């Protein structure tokens, strides 16, 4: 839906690759001929419209299709979501749902002790909150550190650099289902990893049946699957640091270690912050890989916030749309805060530069 993996942050766009030759230099061919015919037809059909609207107002025609899809499937649902959050019953159609005020939110917050999910009415929700919090902290920290190390390694003058870069990026392309199945196969009782452990003299570990191991592996596979994306962004940030700075530093007798702390890290800070916030926003939404991997289990050990919303609204016996919508409004608030932080940070970074 909201495909925002390649999140644009910069205000100016760098050239995106220039090897595609302009069509004007090519000899005319059949496709070109058909395309020209198509343009003529469109031209004829649209001429009366432009005569009536005038040149500048043609812009409305051009934004219209995008705006329609955007309005119907993004803006309207955002408004509807609030209506769901404040109404009850299991009806899907908003008109059939009675207004119940903040009851859904009250139900989510009905706890005697917020630190102990067992005392909450919606205990799964609070378990999901705590699981998500732990996941976000550990996953983001681990992934950003690994991505930074990988970017530093790939930024060195090494042979096979393009190859290594592709290899580190490759898992990013794999779908969540494929990632989950690959690792499920490796981690099962008779799997490759247990074979390695046994051959080293250990005993088999039930990785996906124990709560702690399952939590750890959900983190590890999501780092595996996403790290390449952040590595590439950090690599671009590293390559933007002028090499003269390092040369000057080495002439002044600075050790590589000192250049890293005094040049690389400070100049990489804007990129790092963006990476950090993007990673945070994505970690809050963790869902896709978990369903085929553990399906939230064992028990509720790997049930995160989106899974709670999905289960409450779509798979549980009683479809509690209102409750799910209330939970998603709360999640939207978290994401909104993170986005504001990101915009602030990006703007600060641009003012500095």
């Amino acid at each position, binding site marked *: 839906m*909201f*495909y*925002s993996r*390649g*999140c*644009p*942050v910069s205000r100016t*766009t760098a050239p*995106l*690759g*220039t090897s*595609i030759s302009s069509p004007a230099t090519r000899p005319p061919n059949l496709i070109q001929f058909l395309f020209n015919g198509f*343009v003529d037809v*469109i*031209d004829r059909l649209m*001429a009366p419209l*432009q005569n009536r609207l005038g*040149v500048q107002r043609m*812009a409305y025609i*051009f*934004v219209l299709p*995008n*705006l329609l*899809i*955007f309005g119907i*499937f993004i803006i*309207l*649902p955002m408004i*509807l979501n609030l209506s769901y959050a404040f109404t009850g019953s299991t009806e*899907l159609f908003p008109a059939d749902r009675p207004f119940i005020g903040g009851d859904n939110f009250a139900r989510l917050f009905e706890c005697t002790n917020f630190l102990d999910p067992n005392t909450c009415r919606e205990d799964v929700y609070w378990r999901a909150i705590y699981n998500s919090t732990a996941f976000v902290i550990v996953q983001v920290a681990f992934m950003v550190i690994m991505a930074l190390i990988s970017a530093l*390694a790939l930024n*060195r003058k*090494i042979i096979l650099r393009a190859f290594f870069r592709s*290899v580190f990026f*490759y898992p990013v*392309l*794999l779908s*969540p289902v*494929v990632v989950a199945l690959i690792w499920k*196969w490796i981690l099962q009782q*008779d799997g490759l990893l247990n074979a390695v452990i*046994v051959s080293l003299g250990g005993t088999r570990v039930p990785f996906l049946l124990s709560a702690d191991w399952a939590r750890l592996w959900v983190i590890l596979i999501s780092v595996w699957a996403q790290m390449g*994306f952040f590595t*590439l962004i950090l690599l*671009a940030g590293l390559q933007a640091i002028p090499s003269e700075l390092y040369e000057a530093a080495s002439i002044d007798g600075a050790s590589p270690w000192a250049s890293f702390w005094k040049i690389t890290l400070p100049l990489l800070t804007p990129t790092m912050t963006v990476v950090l916030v*993007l990673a945070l926003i994505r970690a809050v*939404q963790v*869902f*896709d890989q978990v*369903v085929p991997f553990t399906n939230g289990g064992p028990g509720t050990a790997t049930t995160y916030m*989106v899974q709670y*919303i*999905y289960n409450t609204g779509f798979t549980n016996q009683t479809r509690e*749309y209102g409750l*799910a919508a209330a939970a*998603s*409004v709360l999640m*939207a608030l978290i994401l*909104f805060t*993170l986005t504001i932080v990101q915009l602030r940070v990006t703007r600060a970074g641009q003012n500095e530069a």
Partner: protein
Amino acid sequence: MNTIAQYLTRTKGNKRLSLTDVITYMYLTLGTIVMFGPVIWLVLSSFKTTQQLVRFPPTILPYRQESVTVEGYDTPLDLYNVTMEDGTVRQLAQVRRVGIEAQMIDPANPEEIIRVNINQRQPIESVVFSLDNYITGVEQFNFWQYLWNSIVVTALATILTLIVNSMAAFALSKYQFRGRNAIFLVTISTLMIPLSVILIPVFLVVTEIGWNNNLIGVIVPGAATPTGVFLLRQYMLTIPDELLDSARIDGASEWRIYLQIILPLARPALAVLAIFSIMWRWNDFLWPLIVLRRSELFTLQVGLNSFQGELQTQWNLILAMTVLTLLPITAVFAFLQKYITTGIATTGMK
């Protein structure tokens, strides 16, 4: 040998490898094993038979026991290397196994039955990359249907995204009109809002339109990507306005300008967006999972998920189908690798 060593150690203009270089190469090699090894393991495993898959510890390559057809027996018999009592090793075919005793025959002399202890025989195996798992998997998994659905969704969604996003980006970058800034700001502010936040109301809207259980319901809702509008607008801003003005003086209509000037010049940005869109749509899981309930409409990802849910134990088929699912995107990456990596590097961050 010397030249190879020289070549390998030639870095940074120095003659020898420094310690940092050694550490870098060690890290990258380890990284390659961790990042790519699991996929290799998946592909190798997908050629194994069920018996091979449950073997512990597993073998790296897919082995298959050799068998021989012997006159008088309907099914092919498995071949073993048997150590005889006098210490010689003979190739024998197993007829049946009773407890710890195996009844074997010499394929050349099928009349005589030789009884041996099962510990004295070693299966004769050879590496075989058999396509059996793929053939059975494709039959049971309805692979072609899912593949077709995935292709339809990915192709149509990408085309639709390119059309509506480029039109909107053209308007937002090249015209002055009331509401322009408002539209742009609303678009940008929804960049970070994920589907999961508005899951239920989007489902309602799609249901009300009647697109539930319909591929159109998967294709259209995500077509107006904020990322795409932003990416294309930024690129189109770099196209000089004078080009448009001179075309207008020559009598070109706005549609002609869009189709014959803007689109060809924005090709690099369109290519990046197309690649993004293909990646997003091919791998999309949550939304198709909700919209598509009838199995003949499943995309590969949804199909694979339900397939692995049904066949908990049939790993041989699951593995083969997983390989088939990741194959197309891997092929796309192999060909467009440069565009994908530079695209992400330039749009994710300047």
